């Protein structure tokens, strides 16, 4: 009984219909949250006493960085599930994640370096956090490269799943190694807001943005998932029904 939800999640027609039904809910609620967060962040929040108005980049930078990490985690977990239980739907989830994650990683890198210029006086610094974010981008690119280089969907699924799982084993290793690497060479990292905690009127919009982006990710994921499921499914009857709508 407890496992029925799992089996239903493994059933492509069910997932397809569920995704179709849920997408608008996530899409609209995320749009609302993001708009509210924007208003709060750009208009209501007071300027930072050190960084002035420049700190407002946080409302796009932090959500982008958050997405880059969360999406990779989702992707790796889905890939592992797909490998272990040979679940097509899980592979479809993993395949849907990569482009979204890669694009937000790029956004985090660019917004971060745009922020870095006024704060640190340089666009780029080989700081541990920055460096590991860059490596994360390479991991995404490798994943997508492998996927697109393999023609057959089933084979691409499993090959890239192996890579995603190996990659996730490596993410903490990369993170800590980069930390240790730098600690031997260089003074502690520059990147922190010089205050113990943010005032509420700065924090609330940030939380709204984070939640909004998360829901937005789910909406995009569901949309891509439908396409990926369709391309893996040969069972004509439900596909025909799904397409007629």
């Amino acid at each position: 009984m407890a496992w029925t939800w799992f089996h239903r999640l493994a059933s492509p027609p069910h997932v397809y219909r569920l995704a179709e039904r849920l997408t608008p809910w996530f899409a609209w609620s995320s749009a609302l949250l993001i708009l509210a967060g924007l208003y709060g962040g750009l208009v209501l929040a007071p300027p930072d006493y050190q960084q002035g108005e420049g700190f407002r980049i946080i409302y796009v930078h932090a959500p982008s960085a958050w997405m880059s990490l969360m999406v990779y985690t989702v992707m790796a977990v889905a890939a592992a599930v797909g490998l272990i239980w040979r679940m097509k739907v899980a592979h479809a989830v993993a395949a849907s994640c990569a482009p979204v994650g890669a694009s937000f990683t790029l956004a985090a890198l660019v917004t971060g370096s745009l922020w870095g210029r006024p704060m640190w006086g340089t666009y780029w610094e080989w700081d541990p956090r920055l460096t590991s974010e860059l490596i994360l981008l390479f991991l995404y690119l490798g994943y997508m490269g492998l996927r697109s280089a393999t023609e057959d969907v089933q084979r691409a699924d499993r090959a890239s799943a192996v890579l995603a799982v190996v990659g996730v084993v490596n993410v903490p290793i990369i993170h800590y190694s980069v930390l240790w690497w730098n600690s031997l060479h260089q003074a502690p990292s520059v990147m922190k807001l010089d205050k113990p905690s943010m005032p509420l009127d700065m924090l609330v919009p940030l939380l709204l943005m984070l939640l909004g982006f998360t829901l937005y990710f789910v909406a995009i994921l569901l949309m891509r998932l439908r396409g990926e499921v369709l391309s893996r499914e040969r069972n004509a009857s439900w596909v025909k029904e799904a397409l007629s709508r």
Partner: protein
Amino acid sequence: MMEFLEMGGYARYVWPSYALTFAVVILNVVWARRALARSREQARRRLAMQEEPT
């Protein structure tokens, strides 16, 4: 309003950041829709092929 747009002198950094991030947000929607449409089209063709008498 001008003051708001100037962002206390940080406009060169703030607005491109927002523009890029929302470009990514919107592009992801576009890409996802396009991918879905493509898959539907392919599935339709596949169905047509299977229904052909062999």
